[in-house]
Structures are given as structure tokens and as C-alpha cells.
């Protein structure tokens, strides 16, 4: 992001400077788009500060009365803390496992020639395009059957959910990290070999530190995917293992929807991921660039 600054500084007075009409079109388009993008965020924030009577009546742009009550009530209406913990455990474990496994796989793909390499990468990438629903039915049956025949409770457990989440992020992680690792010069590996490192030594002492931004970006992506997943969470969890994506529906009772609490809870579960993402998005962009060149 640093290079365009220097470019435009010299450009402003040059003949290539954008004409006025362009700047007006840009202003109008970007303003409208910002409004569209931020509208739900505003609704989330403002409604989370309203009392229930207020969100149940006709929508009002500004809260008639500001209250923090929804932020206190969300923890009692549904066991939000437990859902939060479940989501944290599931998304965290899935992230750590998929990053570690992807680091090994990506290292193999980026550094070695071996038989079956093409088949491996094509298979891994193509599983990403398959509809989740295709895997849901069989996995559901497999988990239920394993539970019935061996007593290992995968269905409804956090472990089972972690296992399914692993594979959503795994193909993407392998693909991104392969691109990242390929951009780390091989001379660095060779220098490590000369210093007496083995292949794994070179991986952990040289390649991983050099590609750390990429690994962080992949981890953020994996975490986000797991944190936001709905399909498998809605089928594979029970009352005690429910994650946020399903648990948030609990604010709708038969008679009433506590919209102010829904909005407050949505905000609370969003803040950690959005903050993490915005802090680290630069690395994700860089990763997409290296990945896309391949």
C-alpha cells in the first residue's frame, strides 16, 4: 500500500491526473456504497441501545431512550457465554489444526517434486467447490452410526464439529500457503541445509518465520470461516455444544423476538472477528496476490 502514495504525489499536477468528472463520480459512488455497507452496522448498533418497546414499534433512526440493558440481558435470555465458549473452542481448535496441517502440506507442494502432486492439488482445490450439503448428509449418518456402533459420540460433540470445520479451511489454507512458501527464496532453505538443518529444521527455522504474515492471514481466514459457519453447526450440535451461529436464534421466542438483544448479541460476537480481520487484512490481500499469480 506504500507505493501508490509516492505515485500520486507526483501525479496530482501531471497530465494523468483524473479529471474533475471522475472525482465527482468517485465521490458519489463511494458515498452511496459506504451507506449501503454501513446501514446494517448502524441498525445493529442503534437497535442494541434501545429498550424493547422501541424496537418492537415502528423503526426509528435515533433511539428515543438510550439503554445498556440489552447488553446485560443477552447473557441470561440464552446461555450466550456457553455458546461463546463453544464457538471459541471449535473455531480455535479447527484453526490451529488446519494451519499446522496446511503448513506441512504446503511445504511439500512448494518444495518437492513428487508423483501425484498435481492430482493432490487438483483434488484439494476441487473439494472446495462441492456443495456443503453434499457432505452434510453422509457425515451426519457416519457420525450417528459411529456413535451407535462404538459409543464414540461424534454427533453432537465439539470434536465432531471441529473435524468437519477443519476441512473447510484446509483446502484454502494449503492453496494460500503454497503461494506464500513459493515466494520465500529457496536459497534461504539451502543456507539452512548448509548450517546443518534437516528439511523440517529448514521449514521451522526459515520458511515459517519468513512466511509468517501469510500464516497469520490464513489463520484469520480459517477462524472466520469456522466462527461464521451455520449449516453443520445447525445439524451437528446439541443443547450443550451449540455454537453462536445457532444459539443466536434463541432470542426469538414464540411470542416475541427480542430484537434489541439480538442486535446486542450480534455486535458482541462480531467485534472480535471484525477487529482481527481489519487488523490483519493487509496480509490477506498480499496472500491473494501471491496466490493468484500462481
Amino acid at each position, binding site marked *: 500500500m506504500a507505493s501508490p502514495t509516492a505515485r*500520486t504525489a507526483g501525479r496530482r499536477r501531471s497530465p*494523468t491526473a483524473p479529471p474533475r468528472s471522475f472525482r465527482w463520480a468517485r465521490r458519489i459512488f463511494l458515498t452511496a456504497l459506504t451507506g449501503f455497507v454501513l446501514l446494517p452496522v448502524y441498525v445493529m448498533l442503534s437497535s442494541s441501545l434501545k429498550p424493547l418497546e422501541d424496537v418492537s414499534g*415502528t423503526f426509528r433512526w435515533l433511539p428515543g431512550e438510550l439503554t445498556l440493558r440489552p447488553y446485560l440481558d443477552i447473557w441470561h435470555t440464552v446461555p450466550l457465554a456457553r455458546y461463546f465458549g463453544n464457538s471459541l473452542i471449535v473455531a480455535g481448535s479447527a484453526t490451529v489444526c488446519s494451519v499446522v496441517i496446511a503448513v506441512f*502440506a504446503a511445504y*511439500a507442494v512448494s518444495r518437492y517434486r513428487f508423483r501425484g502432486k498435481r492430482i*493432490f492439488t487438483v483434488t484439494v482445490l476441487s473439494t472446495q467447490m462441492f456443495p456443503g450439503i453434499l457432505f452434510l448428509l453422509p457425515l451426519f449418518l457416519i457420525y450417528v452410526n459411529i456413535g451407535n456402533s462404538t459409543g464414540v459420540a461424534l454427533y453432537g460433540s465439539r470434536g465432531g464439529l471441529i473435524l468437519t470445520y477443519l476441512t473447510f479451511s484446509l483446502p484454502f489454507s494449503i492453496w494460500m500457503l503454497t503461494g506464500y512458501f513459493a515466494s520465500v527464496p529457496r536459497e534461504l532453505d539451502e543456507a539452512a541445509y548448509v548450517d546443518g538443518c534437516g528439511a523440517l529444521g529448514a521449514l521451522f527455522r526459515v520458511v515459517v518465520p519468513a512466511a509468517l504474515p501469510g500464516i497469520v492471514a490464513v489463520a484469520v481466514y480459517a477462524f472466520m470461516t469456522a466462527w*461464521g459457519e451455520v449449516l453443520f453447526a445447525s445439524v451437528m450440535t446439541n443443547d450443550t455444544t451449540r455454537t453462536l451461529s445457532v444459539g443466536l436464534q434463541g432470542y426469538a421466542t414464540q411470542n416475541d423476538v427480542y430484537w434489541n438483544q439480538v442486535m446486542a448479541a450480534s455486535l458482541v460476537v462480531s467485534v472480535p472477528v471484525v477487529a482481527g480481520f481489519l487488523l490483519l487484512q493487509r496480509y490477506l490481500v498480499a496472500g491473494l496476490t501471491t496466490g493468484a499469480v500462481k
Partner: protein
Amino acid sequence: MRVLAGLRRAGLPYLLLLPALLLELLVHLVPMVIGIVMSFKDLTRLHIGDWGTAPWKALGNYRVTVDFDAPVGATLLHSFFVTCAFSVLTVGLCWLLGTTAAIFLQENFRGRGLLRAVFLTPYALPVYAAVITWAFMFQRDNGLVNHVLHDQLHLTDGRPFWLLGDHSFLALLVVSVWKTWPFAFLVVMAGLQNIPKDLYEAAALDGAGLVRQIRRITLPALRPINQVLVLVLFLWSFNDFNTPYVLFGKAAPEAADLLSLHIYQSSFVTWNFGTGSAMSVLLLLFLLVVTAGYLLATSRGRKHADG
């Protein structure tokens, strides 16, 4: 010793791949095979505890699924067309918004970094939190959409239902575009960084205006990226489950009945896994054919452009 070391080295890539391979096998390949087998079985509630005992049905499930005169097939066909329309519109709009925003943000100006962060927010928000908020905005009596359209702008007759009936397609599309376009933005922005700046300067010196520069330099340079981007966007929106499920619940209104939710509903609500699997397999086959055709067509188009 040397032979042993050689062996170890030859085996090393496989060893490194082993965990990834095992997982792929366990969670993708085995379920896929089982899914295909399931689609040939009469798998109802009775046999869920031990699916092996379900009676063989040969092509029976497929016959029911593609019998477009009967209810199961008719609704599936309808859902298929809804999904096609939804995907084409989502991909088109997301691409358009993403590309325009990326081009407008290519140049540095005050607030560019902030705008970039703002634009990426829908992508970062957990899907269910964002879609629940949209569901609230689309509420008939206490939502923002009707408040603006009816109370403030007087554009609508009365307060329409947005999450029921024919309007639901529009609601679904808006939400889907809102949360997907930042990905297009992100990818195009990454692609723009690879275009050498002097190309633009040379073009400007030759008297090419902005529109011409975009048409002649930017868009051709983005072609390889667009090829992947459009495919990924299409597959995502075609398989989207999260948006309709959070927006509508377990059953979507007819006008917005996307395939993923349709299959989910036919499997888990009616507990008929056999037909659900047959539908999934058909969906997969369709996507494979479309993807293969698309890749073939775009790579041929590229060769023509190069030659």
C-alpha cells in the same frame, strides 16, 4: 545408510502430506462416496441408526427427483431455476460493485485506507450476525426498509412483507450481494496491484482517456483474475445455505427457495435422506459440468486473445 537417507527423502513429501490426505479422505472423499451410495438407497427415518440396512432402491430416488410432473421434481426444478437466477444476479452485481470500487480506490486520496476497511466489514462480519440484522431490517412492521420506503418516501402501497412471498427473492439478493461483493473487491484490488504503473502513464501520454485506459489496460490485465473470481463467486452463491437459512429459517418462501436449503429441507425435515442425496449428487454433477465447460470456454477464449 545413503540408500536409507535417499528413501527417507523420497518419502518425505508424502509424509508431510499424510495428515492433510487423511483428513481429506475422511471428511471429503469417504462422505462423498457414501453420499453417492445413499442416493441409491431407500433411506428414511427407520434406517438412520444403521444406514447399511436400508433397502436398495436402484435409480428410484433419481426417478422421483427428476419427475418434474410430480411435486418433488416440480419443486426441485423450480428451486433450480431460482438458484440459477439468484447466482447469475449475485455474481454480476458483486463483480460490478467490487471492480468499480477497486478501480475508484486504486488512486490514493484522503480516507482511502478507512474506506477500504469499511468496505471489507461485511466480509468480516459473521454471516449469521449480519443476516439476522438484515432480517430485522426487512421486518414488516418494525423494520427499517418499510420505514424508509413507506413512511418516509411513500414509495410502497402499505407495508409489504419482504421475507414472505415474491419480494423475498429481492431481499435475499440484496443480502447476498451485500455480504459477497467485498470479496470481489478484495480480489480485484489485489489484481490491480500487479499492473505496472507505467502502462497507464504511457497510455495517458498517448492521449488515452480514463475510460479508454480502463477498457484497454485494466480490464484485460484483470482477465485471469476475473476468470477465477467469477467461478468462485458462482459456486459460492449456487451453494449458499447460510443466507437463506438465517433469513427465512428452515423453509424458504417459494420465490427464494435456493437449492441448498431445499435439499436440507427435503432431507432433515421430511427425513428422506435417499432423495436428498440424489438431489445433492445431481447438484454436484451440474456444477462439475458447468465448471468444466466454463474453464474450457475461458481458456480457449484466452488462447484466441493471445494469438
